[in-house]
């Protein structure tokens, strides 16, 4: 590279934005007003979508990329990064989102999948991608396809943190086990995880995922956010949990405070007070699991 020649879309540049979001809260918003509330509350980014996952569950039907006009409106309303969702495998939705200048594309199981075998080839894009994962193998397959941030999937739109905890424990638990494995065992790990060997070897060497690991899916309270952070997430996504609660603005701010001060129980106790009712939430027994989408 000669002096001042600019290289865009490099791995470092794409993963770098995820580094900047660490310790923060990314909030789902469906209009510019909600985006302002999120920014005012201290969100590090917003996820622009037409319906929050709780409504997608109720409405049923096919969930798709948002209307570009709606994304434009949210981009105009805030100065923080704006993310948007494309369907799994729907690389044209991703091309459109890149053309709109969104800061991150979420190839998301919350929308209806467009391809039952293939995810998007994310290396082909300048815009960075975040993908969901329920376990380490899934996370490494997404990274091998070019994802620059992984979020544990949890179960979006439920207000129920149990799946987020399951997925986070699974991913981080296997990272720890690989850190203890000897070099011969890494081949079997790669086979068991259905993941590329070089990525498994990289984890054995560094003890961490090659990209930032965030948590999503079912977080509804400041305590939920702090739980994810104490379990090892580096930032959190909160979807329906904020704008499906009784009083979104103070809850949003409290979740931001809890994510920063995740290990300080005194602060968690203080910010958890008097927030009104959280989203009602649902049990998992008869729930459609978005997390099972993705291959």
């Amino acid at each position, binding site marked *: *590279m*000669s*002096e*001042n*020649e*600019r*290289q*865009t*879309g*490099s791995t*470092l*540049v794409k993963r*770098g*934005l995820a*580094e*900047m*979001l*660490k*310790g*923060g809260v990314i909030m789902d918003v469906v209009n510019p007003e909600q985006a302002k509330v999120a*920014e005012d*509350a*201290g*969100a*590090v*980014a917003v996820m622009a979508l037409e319906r929050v996952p709780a409504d997608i569950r109720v409405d049923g039907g096919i969930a798709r990329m948002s209307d570009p006009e709606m994304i434009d409106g949210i981009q105009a309303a805030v*100065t*923080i*990064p704006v993310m948007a969702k494309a369907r799994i495998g729907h690389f044209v939705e991703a091309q459109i989102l*890149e053309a709109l*200048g*969104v*800061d*991150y594309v979420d190839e998301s199981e919350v929308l209806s999948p467009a391809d039952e075998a293939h995810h998007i080839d994310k290396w082909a894009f*300048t*815009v*960075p991608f975040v993908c969901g994962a329920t376990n380490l193998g899934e996370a490494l397959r997404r990274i091998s396809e070019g994802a620059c941030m992984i979020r544990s999937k949890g179960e979006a739109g439920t207000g129920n943190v149990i799946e987020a905890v399951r997925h986070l424990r699974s991913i981080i638990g296997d990272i720890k086990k690989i850190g203890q494995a000897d070099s011969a065992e890494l081949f079997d790990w790669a086979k068991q995880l259905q993941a590329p060997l070089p990525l498994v070897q990289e984890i054995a060497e560094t003890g961490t995922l090659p990209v930032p690991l965030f948590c999503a899916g079912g977080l509804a309270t400041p305590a939920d956010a702090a739980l994810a952070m104490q379990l090892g997430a580096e930032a959190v996504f909160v979807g329906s949990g904020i704008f499906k609660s009784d009083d979104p603005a103070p809850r949003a*701010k409290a979740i*931001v*405070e809890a994510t*920063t*001060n995740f290990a300080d129980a005194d602060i968690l106790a203080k910010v958890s007070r008097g927030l009104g009712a959280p989203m009602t939430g649902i049990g998992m027994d008869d729930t459609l699991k978005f997390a099972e989408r993705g291959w």
Partner: protein
Amino acid sequence: MTTPVGVLALQGAFARHIAVLEELGVEAVEVRRPEHLDDVGALVMPGGESTTMSMLLESSGLFDAIEARLDAAMPVFGTCAGLILLASDIADGRPDQRSFAALDISVRRNAYGRQVDSFETDLAVDVIGGMFPAVFIRAPGIEQVGADVDVLASVDGRPVLCRRDHVLAASFHPELSADGRLHRYFIDQVATGVS
């Protein structure tokens, strides 16, 4: 210097700064509460979201504590969002966004565009004796600098690394490059005399 360097750890890339400093053999500690400032001789303010950090600086009580230390000439290195927090003037910020005004520069948030415009480039930095691989992520642009501010590096004529006395600020992210020379410069040249 023998006292630890604090790294503002409310949000953003603070862990990367700590890793770079430790690689250089410098003791680095997280600053999350005002009392964490007591034992540090210098402060690094990392990249992240400046609006989020501004809010958390207020609620944690750190804003006033850091401001008092900066008034007492604590050396500080701000990168990206950290630079915004040090600037005397912020264009395109939120109306309620406070800054420490420790460096007489005018900055514009996201001046280089959205994430698809974020970039890497080789930067000539004479004070470290050569080229530095600089990473710009939704970077702030320095639009004006005061008469007593030294411009240490520029991209296409626009300043990206500035210093005045004990204050060093970069539009880019030296903590993301596998190169500790700018942190070394801060410790050895900017924070000298700190005990």
